[in-house]
């Protein structure tokens, strides 16, 4: 085992996959000579050269499109979009092209590419650098969307995404790049589908993905002190969603909180709770609760920003509400 930060785990996955297959290339703004805004590709330019670690101009839609075109003829591009806000510029090529080419070609052309992008609030980055657009991608047929919560998944899911034949959007998080975890040293893969029970419990299920898993874990620790046994479920993949694992957890605990960092409308929580109602409504002992951001553009001011996005305490309070304790 080696303690790796999230960004180091991503770099290791890049390095191994590029060494394994000459058709794997990396593309993005500042990923080469500069080593990547979050260092996730540092050192790769020197090792693999400018033709495989490609510094792009600031043209998100078209460099993503170039990656898609390359993937159609057998390349395996890993595209970094520096912030998910910028992915909005590339929605045409991601949603109209990558997600639809296999289907509208009758399965004859594939787009095996990976798009990595951090989606979340960091520290006072204000409205245009704090978007969380998971809900937009999870509503698009033809994409896979995954949200690694830590270095093990960041490494193992990137490796799987490179080898998978579908377009995969990996949503990372600016506040997780320095998060550390013991990562096994030998090569391994983590599946792109399947929710994971990351903490077992009996009384309530706290569902998160990406950064909000950590809010759920913190809330579960506080609940334990209150004598409440909370189960924490990491969705891991937002498309497709593992409804089976969610259902089995709810049938055990009968109570649920869904925590998302995004705004609530038409969001992850809305989708998950709808699925729960459809799959196991009668297993519920109380109303589900969503914990989410305020429905505002993220403010710059630190106090306002803190008020706008959910915290572990919000998840804890939500759990108390579900449990009928407040």
């Amino acid at each position, binding site marked *: 085992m080696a303690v790796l930060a999230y960004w180091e785990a991503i770099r290791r996955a890049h390095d191994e996959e590029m060494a394994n297959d000459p*058709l794997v*290339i990396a593309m993005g703004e500042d990923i080469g000579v500069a080593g990547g805004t979050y260092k996730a590709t540092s050192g790769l330019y020197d090792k693999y050269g400018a*033709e495989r670690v*490609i510094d*792009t*101009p600031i*043209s998100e*839609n*078209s*460099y*993503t*499109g*170039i*990656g*898609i*075109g*390359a*993937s*159609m*003829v*057998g*390349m395996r591009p890993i595209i970094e979009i520096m912030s998910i806000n910028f992915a909005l510029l590339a929605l*045409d*090529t991601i949603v*109209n*092209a990558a997600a639809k*080419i*296999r*289907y*509208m*070609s*009758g*399965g*004859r*052309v*594939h787009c095996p590419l990976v798009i990595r992008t951090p989606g979340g609030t960091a520290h006072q980055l204000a409205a245009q650098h704090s978007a969380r657009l998971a809900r937009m991608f999870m509503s698009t*047929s*033809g994409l*896979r969307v995954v949200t690694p919560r830590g270095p093990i998944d960041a490494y193992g899911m990137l490796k*799987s*995404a490179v*080898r*998978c*034949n*579908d377009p995969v959007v990996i949503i990372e998080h600016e506040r997780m790049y320095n998060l550390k975890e013991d990562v096994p040293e030998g090569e391994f*893969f*983590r*599946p*792109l*589908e*399947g*929710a*994971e*029970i990351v903490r077992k419990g009996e009384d309530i299920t706290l569902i998160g993905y990406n950064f909000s898993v950590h809010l759920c874990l913190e809330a579960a620790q506080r609940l334990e002190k209150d004598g409440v046994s909370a189960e924490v479920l990491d969705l*891991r993949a937002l498309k497709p969603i*593992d409804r089976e*694992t969610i259902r*089995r957890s709810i049938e*055990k605990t009968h109570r649920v909180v869904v925590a998302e960092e995004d705004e609530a409308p038409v969001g992850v929580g809305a989708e998950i709770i709808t699925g729960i109602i459809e799959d196991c409504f009668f297993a519920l002992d109380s109303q589900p609760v969503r914990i989410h951001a305020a429905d505002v553009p993220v403010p710059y001011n630190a106090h306002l920003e803190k008020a706008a996005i959910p915290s572990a305490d919000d998840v804890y309070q939500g759990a108390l509400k579900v449990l009928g304790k407040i």
Partner: protein
Amino acid sequence: MTDADKKRLLREMLFYRRFEDRCFEAYMERKIGGFLHLYSGQEAVATGVLEMAKTGGGDKADYVITGYRDHIHAIKSGTPPREVMAELYGKETGSSRGRGGSMHIFDPTANFMGGYALVGQPFPLAAGLALGAKHKKSGQIAICFLGDGANNQGTFHETMNMASVWNLPVLFVCENNMYAIGTHIDRSTAVRDQYKRVCGYNIKASQHDGMDIEVVMKAAKDAVDYVRNEQKPYFIEFITYRFRGHSMSDAKGYRTKEEEAEWEKRDPINIFKARLIKAGIVTEADIKKMQDEIQHEIETDIIKFAEQSPEPSVAELTKYVLDDNPNPRWIGPLQNKY
């Protein structure tokens, strides 16, 4: 070019004209749905350019990509016409298994990498095909056909820049028919000469008559050779005219009958036909025979195939959304311990 080649090219263009006219008829009979964009009038461009490219599929043939006016580009690339027609009929035997329709003909066996309905979207995809070819050192180039209207998208500028910076072997073919849907180029675009727009990206460019197939071929040969040998992009513009509306819903109210009549005098098929007759390469009787053969082939093979092919099964509605046979090692599911 031999006389036999010239005769073959005339026959190809006659075939393309009749194919598109037959699509029009099938659309009026409601056999074809959705949007339908016909290529009549512009035949010399795709025919002439692709005559100079390596077509037919395989790992040596060039990649071809275009917008939604794509039937003829696919056929000239090597897609069987009956599969294009079956696609327009929405049949399982269509080139996209009935999932794409007129605007989304795909045939990777012919290296025809698709028709796309987002104007300007093929620019970056084409550059990506070229990047793949360059990376694999396969000697292939990418050829991207788009209209003048596409040049007002951001993808035009973004892609010209990257294709130039990265020396990508891609030939951008601009079919300037002077209308972006129904808006004349002078009302939508700051310069009429589209080849001048790429000088800011340090890309070699030229403009030619798109109604004379021999002019097209000569210019295209130079451009294709340049892209392949220099491993750099080239932008080639052809001045042309579409004889029909933008799509079937277009009454052409934005242009005058006089303008249309002027351009019809420059019909690329008539120009080439007259030249071949004058040179004694074909006779009127030869042409009549060709047209009869074409008519026969379209009715007894192509239309019949499309009519008689099965519809896709509703049971396969969600097939092709994601990889239908994924490797569980990458996909999962994850084994939870409950």
